[in-house]
């Protein structure tokens, strides 16, 4: 019988963290939106990105017992991910950009929802829930890429409570997507909660069920 090929931790982590990096870069470049000019959105984005990476590390690290992180740690992570997202959203609703200029068609379809006195080059003033679906779908795509990479990298590796670990996968992916959109998507609270928060919630729930299938041996 051929010896088992163990993946090294570095190999194990390459794809998921690469996916997170790709999502962040996409958020910074493809959307074609000006980045936030104040410190608070940057701090919120970095905090969400850091917590997303911590969640990914929790999923990938099997621990000394090989059974994965304790279930109470997973629950604590889910609670903190939700809390951080809400706090970041509330904190960054200030400093809404007063003018926006769009540089590419993709940006036209990503949530443009500043509340007052928004001036854009070729789109009329938009309300806070405008293009909600487009922004939410972008968020879902970003979260899906990260979630899929985590599920594949950790397949059959979580023998204990694989559903809760799946929830961590979804929350981590959702946070990464929210971090990617935080800097360039308008920061009205209603839009952020609906277009960034609902996809995160959906990813968490969906990955709970997918985790039972994919992560359990």
């Amino acid at each position, binding site marked *: *019988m*051929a*010896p*088992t*090929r*163990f*993946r090294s931790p570095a190999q194990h982590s390459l794809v998921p963290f690469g996916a997170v990096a790709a999502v962040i870069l996409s958020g910074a470049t493809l959307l074609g939106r000006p980045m936030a000019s104040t410190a608070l959105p940057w701090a919120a984005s970095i905090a969400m990105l850091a917590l997303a990476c911590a969640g990914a590390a929790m999923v990938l690290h*099997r*621990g*000394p*017992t*090989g*059974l994965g992180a*304790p*279930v*109470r740690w997973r629950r604590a992570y889910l609670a903190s991910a939700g809390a951080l997202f809400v706090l970041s959203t509330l904190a960054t609703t200030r400093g809404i950009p007063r003018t926006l200029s769009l540089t590419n068609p993709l940006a036209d379809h990503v949530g443009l929802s500043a509340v007052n006195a928004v001036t854009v080059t070729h789109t009329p003033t938009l309300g806070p829930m405008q293009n909600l679906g487009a922004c939410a779908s972008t968020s879902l795509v970003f979260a899906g890429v990260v979630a899929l990479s985590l599920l594949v990298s950790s397949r*059959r*590796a979580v*023998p*204990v*409570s*694989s559903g*809760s670990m799946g929830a961590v996968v979804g929350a981590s992916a959702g946070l990464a997507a929210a971090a990617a959109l935080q800097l360039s998507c308008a920061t009205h609270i209603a839009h952020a909660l609906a277009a960034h928060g609902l996809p995160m919630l959906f990813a968490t729930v969906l990955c709970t069920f997918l985790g039972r299938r994919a992560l*359990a*041996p």
Partner: protein
Amino acid sequence: MDAYCKGDRQAFDELFARLAPKVNVVLLRLSRSRELAEELTQVTFLKVHRARDTYVPGSKVFSWVMAIARNVYIDAYRKNRVLRRHETLTDEGVLPERGRDAQTVDVNAFAQLSDEEQQLIRDTIDALPATQREALILLKVEGLSLKQVAEITGASVAAVKVRAFRAYEALRAALGVVRRPTADTPTAPKRTP
């Protein structure tokens, strides 16, 4: 397990010989069906083989295999394949013997109970919530430590203690065990003023 992962096929045979009986007994007590327990044991070791690249070398094999076995049982239960009928576990009507220590059930003591009491215990255990039954079986019948049970089930040590305590209380209530002082029971001497 380390030798098996390195490609030693005989190591798997030895691993199976050591762990399969323990896994089978636990699955038997959870599922109450000999045929299903044997089938689930086979499925467990098939999954152990498939997931061997995720095993952390040097970690406790038994906890890892038991966690997989537990998942296999839960999957079977959710698919409603667990038989509801009771089954006599041995020809003599007692729990099968296994290596025991001070923490495990005294099989001889169980055998000394009346048939009615033995059946009452089995019915009570069967009627327990799944988490309490699992804790009772793993702690008191299989002799695992609290920490091991907590690792396998994904619960905290405190939660396992609570589950086991509730299971004991249910058994006590079913058997109507009440400690009453008798003439032979030593009591504190009365102090005269």
